[in-house]
């Protein structure tokens, strides 16, 4: 019931977003939004009585909480990704990587650790890397590893699982393993013609400050928007789905692992925030939540959409299914060993 008035408020402004929009349109956007907020502030708690059902209140509390908790991490992530876009020359990584796939794939996976950002940033970067002559398998390994094993995500994981450092280690290992295995399988069996249109348009400004600001803004809006979707889905699961249903699934180990893997695909939560959602899925065993954390950054609905856009549909279908299977298996193996 919360959603309907919101979408009505939103719709008159939406058509403007299709076009690039002039400066006037941009200012108008900002003014409309400011007006909206002023009205909203004036009528604060206006809807509070309308939403007196405790289930809906719980839903909105959890929804808002996940979003607020993830926000600082998201901002930190897009700042660093903006800085990297502005400061690291695009050819640098390509030159630093070795030629042979067997060496290049693990190296590219590890190199992912130095690109803090969420998965939305890594798809265009991987496309750009491939364009500059990096072997496709290495670029793909980098794309899978970067959103999962970088310091920002690992710190977020440590915060979300206090007192469980082995969860951070397991996430690092399983994600790195996934990216290397997928990279090597792709280098052995993958065909270059599956990647049909490698059109990667990164946001680049004239000055470093402009590339920085624009990358950060675009990343924030994209990742933030999908974070909202993920938070809503997670809140719905928590507030409305009967507890016993989740508990029933959670008691079958393999089924639970598969379900959480699929949930990670469906929720499409930013890798900087998914640890908090995983921490909240308390009725599931720890290693199936690791599946959630390993699958999430490597394959989810928004990533598949982005990969279709950047690499083409034939690539995305094969790549996503391969990655899903490898990620689930790697997470379960590492989870059995470490957790």
């Amino acid at each position, binding site marked *: 019931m919360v959603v309907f008035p919101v979408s009505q408020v939103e719709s008159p402004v939406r058509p403007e977003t299709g076009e690039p929009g002039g400066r006037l349109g941009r200012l108008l956007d900002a003014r409309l939004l400011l007006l909206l907020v002023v009205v909203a502030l004036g009528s604060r708690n206006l809807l509070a009585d309308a939403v007196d059902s405790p289930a809906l209140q719980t839903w909105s509390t959890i929804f808002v909480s996940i979003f607020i908790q993830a926000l600082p991490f998201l901002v930190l992530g897009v700042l660093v990704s903006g800085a990297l876009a502005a400061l690291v020359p695009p050819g640098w990584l390509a030159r630093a990587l070795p030629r042979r796939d067997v060496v290049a794939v693990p190296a590219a996976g590890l190199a992912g650790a130095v690109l803090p950002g969420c998965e939305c940033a890594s798809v265009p970067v991987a496309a750009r890397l491939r364009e500059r002559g990096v072997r496709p398998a290495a670029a793909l390994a980098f794309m899978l590893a970067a959103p999962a094993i970088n310091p920002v995500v690992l710190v977020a994981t440590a915060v979300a699982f206090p007192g469980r450092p082995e969860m951070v280690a397991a996430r690092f290992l399983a994600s790195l393993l996934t990216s290397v295995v997928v990279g090597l399988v792709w280098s052995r069996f993958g065909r270059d013609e599956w990647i049909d249109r490698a059109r990667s*348009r990164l946001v680049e400004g004239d000055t470093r400050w402009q590339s920085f600001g624009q990358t950060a803004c675009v990343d924030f809006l994209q990742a933030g928007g999908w974070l909202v979707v993920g938070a809503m889905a997670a809140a719905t699961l928590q507030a409305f789905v009967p507890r016993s249903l989740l508990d029933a699934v959670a008691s079958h180990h393999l089924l639970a692992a598969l379900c959480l893997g699929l949930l990670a695909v469906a929720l499409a939560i930013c890798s900087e925030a998914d640890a908090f959602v995983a921490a909240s899925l308390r009725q599931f065993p720890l290693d199936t939540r690791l599946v959630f954390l390993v699958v999430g950054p490597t394959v989810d609905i928004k990533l598949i959409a982005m990969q279709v856009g950047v690499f083409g549909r034939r690539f995305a279908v094969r790549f996503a299914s391969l990655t899903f299977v490898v990620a689930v298996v790697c997470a379960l193996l590492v989870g059995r060993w470490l957790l």
Partner: protein
Amino acid sequence: MLLVVGATALWLGLSDASLAYVRAALRPPLAASGAVLLALAAATLRAGPQPGRATPSAHGHGGRLGAGWLLILPVLVLLLVAPPALGSYAASRQASRSGGPVGAFPPLADPVDGAVPMTVSEFVGRALYDQRRSLEGARVRVLGFATPGEDGGYRLARFNVFCCAADAEAYEIVIRGDPSRRQADQWLLVEGRWLPEPPVARVAPSSRRPVLVAEAVTPVRPPTDRYEHSIFGI
């Protein structure tokens, strides 16, 4: 959009409103991220449109905002609904809780005004898992909200939050010996003694709830931070 989200984050970071959703430690980062977003928004507005610049189609949506429009949803929910901290409804939906440490608990704190103040999660942890039974005979004071229990009685509950309300765990104590009926979500300060039971043998999720025999019950105003933030009841 950056402006709106940034302003909201800054407001949350500087006010107590965020305590219903996240722990207090997150407020400085929240305020900082709000300031950063406002600065980014100001820079974008000042730079104006970039004619001929490729829109980021690699991000899945052709539009300038794309999925970014969804960011208005949490802001509107926050402002219009102002969802309250989790209460008795959410507590009633949690059947089991995660296990705690078994065995060595630190000694009880010193009594203040004739009773040992402790959190609900500490009481539950000691009652279920302390092999030395440190609670036995001690008069304790706990703060929580009432949630309806079996046969007309009530339980004293409080949520423990690691990061945000999404990971909140309800800890509950069954209250005996209070003749008055208490409304759900009424905040109460309860003094009393533990009804001893044998401790749980191993670390495992347990749905057992300890019993507190009340000697004095005082209705109080809700605290500023309605959650506890401890790890496994210590």
